[in-house]
Every structure is written in C-alpha cells, then in structure tokens.
C-alpha cells in the first residue's frame, strides 16, 4: 500500500513539473531534457549566489581559524531557505492536497499518507539543501581544508538539513493552511509574506559588507555567542570539520527530531486537514448602489480580479512597491545620495548628461515587472462566457484592462519621477524631458503588456499561476521588458560621444510613441479579432 502511495506521489510530481501546459501531456525527449537543463541552470545560478556568500564569510572566518562557524552560519541560512522554499509545496501537497478526502475515505493509515507525501517534498528539499549548503562544502574543499571525514559528514548534513527543513516547513505550512482557512483576504496576506521575505533578503544583501566587518571585528564574541546560544549549530559546524562526536550528536538529534515530528504530524493529520473554522458568515446587508457605466463597471471588475488573486497581486505589484520604496529612500537619504553622486560625477562627469536617461531606465525596469494587463486576458478563463454573452463592445473590455494598468503604474511612476527630479536637482529642460519621457514610457509599456497578453492569450488553465507566471506572454514581457530597460541607458552610453543627450531623448520619445501607436492600431484591428475568437 505504501509503495502504491509513493508511486502516486512521484507520478504527481512528474506531472507537476514535466506536464506540457498546452497539451496536458508529459514532456518527453528533447522537451524533458530541456526542462531538466533549465532546472539545473536555475539551481546552478542559486548555488553560485550561495557560493559567493560562503566565500565572503569564509575568508574572514577561516583567517580566524574558526572553521566550524562557516558551516554553522551556512547551515542556518540553508535551513531557513529550505524551510521557506518548501513551505508552499508542503501546504499544497500535505495539508491542502485535493485528494486528501479521497485517500482518507480509503482504508489507509494516515501515517502512510503522510510518509508518501513528505517523501516527495523531501526530494525537493534535498535539491534545495544541496544548492544552499553544497557551495560552503565546495568552498571549504577548494581552500584545501576538507578532510575525508569532514567530506562524508558534511555531505550527510545536506540530507539532515533537508530533513529538519522539512519538519519546519510542515509547521509553517500548517499555520499557512490555518491562515488560509481563517483569513478571507488571502491575496493581501501573500503580498505581506512575500514583501517581508524580500525585505529580509534585501536587508541582508545590502548590509552584507556591514555584517562581514562586524564579524571580523567581533569574531571572538560571535563565536562564543553562537557556541552558547545555538549550541546545536556549534555541533553542526564541528561535525563538518570532521569531528565524529559532534556528527553523532547532530545525527541523533536530527533523526529523533524528525521521528517525533513525523509521529505528531501523522497522529494529527486527519484533524489538521479536516479542521474547519466557524468563520461567521458575513450577513448581507442591502446597500443602495449607485449605477455605474459599463466602463466603470469593467474597470472595477479588473480591480477586483487583481486584488483578490494572491499570485496576480504579488507578481504585478512588486515594481510599484519598489518605486515607492526607492522614492522614500531618495527623500530620506537625500544628502547621502547627493554625496555619492558628487563623488561619481567627479570621476565620470559625462554621467551627468545621462541622469534623465538613467532615471527612465530605472523606471522602465520597474514598470516592466508589473505586467498587470498581460495575464488579465488569459485570466478570464472559464468565465469568459460572461463577457461574451453581455452587450459589451470588445474594445471596452480591452480598454478596461489597459486603463487599469495605466492607473496602477502611473501613480508610483509619477511619484518616483518627481522625487528623482527633486533629489537630483534637474534643471527646467531636464525636468520637462524626464516627465514627458516617463509618461510616454508608461504608455508604451502598458500597450506592450496588453498586446502580448492578447497575442498569447490562453483561456485553458487549471491554476492561476499559469497565466500569471508561466505563460508565453509573461516570459516574453519580462525578458523583452528587461532588455528594453537595459537598452534605454545602454544605447545612450554607447553613443555618448556622438549624440547630444537632448537629441537622444527626442529620438527615444519618437521611437516609443511610434511603437505605442503601432501597438494601439494592432490591438484595434487584429487584437479585437483575436479576443473575439478566444
């Protein structure tokens, strides 16, 4: 029975990762190899990032001959990363799995169901653990310090991190599923979680040098604190350097911790997945509603769609959040930014003429991320019949999608542009050029997003993640958008000696306006036709 359950779980995993979104069939041959290579490439990129961190800390730590601290710190980071990264999969495949009721209705021990499910998550956790912790072992090895025992123990530690990470992710997933049951505004909840995670990530990234300096200056105190307060990581670090006693302690603790957790999860599984909360039904109170026109109703519909879908909201609001954050940063740190700028301009004076173009480049980079209108077409999905059966002009539907993105992106863009103009003290010409170009850019980006959304619309999907993150339209929009964002200042930088900055801005404005007009015409002719035949 357990074998059958494990087989089912791995089939599900294969289906999730290797299923062709369009045909629904499992990818084979070149397509499967291509996917695996892409997966490896992404893993390699992350591993490089972790290697750089390990090397940065390793240089300071190894110089002080506290080798165990390298593994302790990297172990903590890896555990946190594995727990967070597997949390969503644990929620989906353990607590919110669609076939929970089906399996529980059969004569199967809950512990078997839990084991089979945890096993597939463990495979993923093991991959993440390798990517996060493996680089530290590699760095240590390249430094010529890895002993045979250390090599064996640290490799086993990869499996142990995945095991403990799995338990932590189960706890997080349990609370996540509870919150999902209790909290009605799930989209905002996901947005808050994502922003918190990104906030912590950026905080550590931006302060890396500060932490390294602090570590180098206070090595002895840090070492003592870690050894005393997180004793287990002290043992963990020592094991990776080849300490057999420490390894056996860690192995015993991790296995006992997992066994106890597995016992508790199995015993409480039925209760956890069938738990319902007496969330009071919101009694309907009749309110007088003012009549809205078709266009306003469609715009409101777009807003409701966006604000109630967590993946849609979090994936298309990040640029706006960054623009607002950047504006606040520029205002708060105006003096510091000014001082940095003076130093940079002192060394490369020619950059001064580039400032408006750089600001527009940054704006382009942020706004291409918020492709609100791109998935909005595909997201109509199975409900598309509603719009098609109502007396609404197709252009009104399309315009609502365009206007919603314009509304959403123009406000943060305007705030950022005005702040930059104020902080960098642009003259009148620079101010007018930057303002005009930002308006043109927002229009261009919105039309680009919308055109791609219509051209590659796909109403057939089972999860909203597909149109929001994985669709062809989104891929093109993100990569092409980033290329455009780099090209705007990049081309000027290449032509800086032959082109007057004002002329470049004028040419850029003409090109963007022309492209926007072409896309507008395409939408009105071909786009409407495609939309009506979806």
């Amino acid at each position: 029975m357990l074998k059958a359950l494990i087989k089912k779980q791995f089939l599900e995993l294969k289906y999730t990762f290797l299923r062709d979104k369009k045909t629904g069939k499992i990818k084979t041959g070149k397509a499967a190899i291509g996917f695996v290579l892409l997966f490896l490439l992404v893993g390699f990129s992350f591993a490089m990032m972790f290697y750089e961190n390990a090397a940065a800390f390793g240089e300071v730590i190894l110089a002080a001959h506290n080798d165990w601290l390298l593994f302790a710190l990297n172990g903590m980071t890896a555990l946190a990363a594995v727990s967070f990264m597997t949390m969503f999969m644990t929620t989906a495949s353990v607590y919110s799995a669609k076939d929970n009721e089906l399996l529980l209705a059969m004569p199967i021990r809950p512990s078997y169901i839990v084991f089979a499910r945890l096993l597939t998550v463990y495979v993923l956790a093991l991959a993440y653990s390798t990517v996060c912790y493996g680089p530290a072992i590699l760095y240590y090895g390249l430094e010529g310090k890895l002993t045979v025992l250390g090599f064996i123990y640290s490799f086993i530690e990869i499996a142990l991190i995945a095991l403990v990470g799995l338990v932590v992710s189960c706890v997080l997933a349990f609370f996540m599923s509870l919150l999902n049951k209790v909290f009605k505004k799930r989209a905002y909840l996901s947005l808050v979680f994502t922003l918190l995670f990104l906030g912590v990530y950026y905080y550590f990234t931006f302060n890396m040098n500060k932490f390294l300096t602090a570590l180098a200056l206070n090595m002895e105190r840090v070492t003592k604190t870690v050894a005393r307060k997180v004793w287990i990581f002290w043992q963990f670090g020592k094991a990776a350097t080849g300490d057999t006693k420490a390894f056996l302690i860690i192995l015993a603790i991790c296995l006992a911790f997992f066994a106890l957790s597995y016992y508790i999860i199995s015993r409480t599984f039925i209760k956890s997945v069938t738990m319902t909360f007496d969330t009071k039904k919101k009694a309907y109170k009749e309110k007088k509603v003012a009549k809205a026109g078709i266009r306003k109703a469609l715009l409101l519909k777009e807003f409701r769609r966006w604000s109630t879908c967590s993946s849609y909201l979090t994936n298309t609001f990040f640029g706006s959040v960054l623009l607002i954050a950047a504006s606040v940063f520029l205002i708060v740190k105006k003096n510091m930014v000014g001082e940095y700028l003076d130093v940079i301009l002192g060394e490369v004076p020619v950059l001064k003429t580039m400032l408006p173009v750089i600001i527009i480049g940054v704006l382009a980079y942020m706004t291409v991320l918020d492709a609100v209108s791109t998935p909005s077409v595909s997201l109509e999905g199975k409900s598309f019949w509603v719009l098609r059966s109502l007396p609404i002009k197709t252009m009104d539907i399309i315009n609502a999608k365009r206007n919603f993105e314009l509304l959403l992106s123009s406000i943060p863009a305007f705030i950022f542009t005005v702040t930059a103009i104020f902080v960098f003290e642009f003259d009148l010409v620079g101010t007018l050029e930057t303002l005009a170009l930002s308006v043109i850019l927002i229009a261009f980006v919105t039309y680009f997003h919308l055109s791609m959304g219509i051209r590659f619309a796909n109403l057939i999907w089972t999860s909203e993640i597909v149109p929001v993150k994985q669709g062809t339209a989104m891929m093109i929009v993100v990569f092409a958008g980033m290329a455009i964002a780099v090209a705007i200042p990049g081309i000027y930088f290449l032509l800086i000696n032959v082109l007057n900055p004002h002329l470049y801005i004028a040419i850029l404005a003409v090109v963007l306006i022309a492209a926007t007009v072409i896309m507008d015409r395409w939408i009105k002719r071909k786009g409407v036709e495609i939309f009506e035949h979806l």
Partner: protein
Amino acid sequence: MLKIEHLTKVYGDKKAVDDLSLHIEPKEIYGFIGHNGAGKTTTLKSVTGILDFDEGTITIDGINVKENPLEAKKRIAYIPDNPDLYEYMTGIQYLNFIADVFEIDSDTRSERINRYAEMLELKNDLGEQVSSYSHGMKQKLAIISALIHNPKLIIMDEPFVGLDPKAAFELKELMKQMCDEGASIFFSTHVLDVAEKLCDKVAIISHGKLVKAGTMEEVKGDDSLESAFLELEEK
C-alpha cells in the same frame, strides 16, 4: 422572437450543427432535447453570440445576431450549464456588475435583486464570495443575474442541474411567470418529465440535425415525451 435559419457550425471536419432552423414566438417556453454531444449547447451558444457560426442566420426580436450583436445581446439572457462566474466577486458585486452593464437604475436593480434572491433563497448569501458557493448557489446567482434586466429571450442550458427541489420548483414557476409577462424561453434539458410538463413546444436534435420540432402534442403524439424521444433517437 427568435428565428434560427439554416444554422450550421463546423468543428474541423465535424458538423456540430447541420442546417438547423427553429422559430420561437413570444411568450413561448421552448424545450431543446437531445443526447450528449447532439449540438444543443453549440446552438445555444451561437444564439447568444458567444460562438461564431459558419452558415445561416439568427435573429432575435428582428435583430441579426451577427450584424448587430450588441443590440441582440441587450434583449437576451444566457444561463450556461456550468456557471463559471467571477469567483473573486461576492454575489452582490456580481449582480451589480451585470446591472451596471445593462445600465439598470439603482431602485430597479435593488427591487429585482431582492425579489429573485428571496424567491430562490439566496439573499442571505449575497455578501459571500462566489468561490464559496455550491454549484446550486452559483446556478441560482446566474439565474438572478439573467433576470435582472428583464430580458425578452432567456436561453438556458440545463438550468435544473444542481438545483434543490424547492429552487427547481421556484425556477419553473419563474419561467412561467416570465412568459406570462411577455418573455420567451429557450432551454435545453435532459429531464424529459420537466420538459413535457413545462414546454409549449419542443425540438429534438440528433447528431447536429433537427429531428422533430413542434407543439408537445405534435412531437410526442399519444406517447410520453421519453418514449417519443427514444424512438426518434433509434431511427
């Protein structure tokens, strides 16, 4: 009210609907029956303008669906067999959206929403997200949204599926009432007993072709509708 003339719809090399003609008069309840895949939904979707068709003409209240789709759609309401509504809205938000599209004033929409929601016992749930609704509740919401603009022609695809007995009874009463007030109803169903009791006229479609159409007596004769249908299917 509804004239379908020589309707043909082809999917690839298969004719889903083949030269179908039907006329529905005002105040008529017209049943449309046929086996799974016979072409019922394709016909209904062609009438509502959701699906483009290859040949023939469809006019609603004298308005050509292909030439003037917006005017035609203003006169109809469509309730699909599986109401995939906007799950991200609450029931009342969805109804207000539909009312806004049909430009129904505040007092009229409030009166109609109250009347139909109370009749179908959905009023207390209107503040809830559509995603939390059962199939039957979604069906009820789709019915209320269809009636909100007082349509001249109501097109329903399997309207009784998922409804509880009381709601099914209320819907039948509502259908009769709508017809008394001047509307026409064209609906598909597999529940032949209901069709027999409710419809003024009935049409049977098989493999895309109209097999028989007319008043209930003309179609079933002395037999039950079920017997007549099975007999026609076997031919």
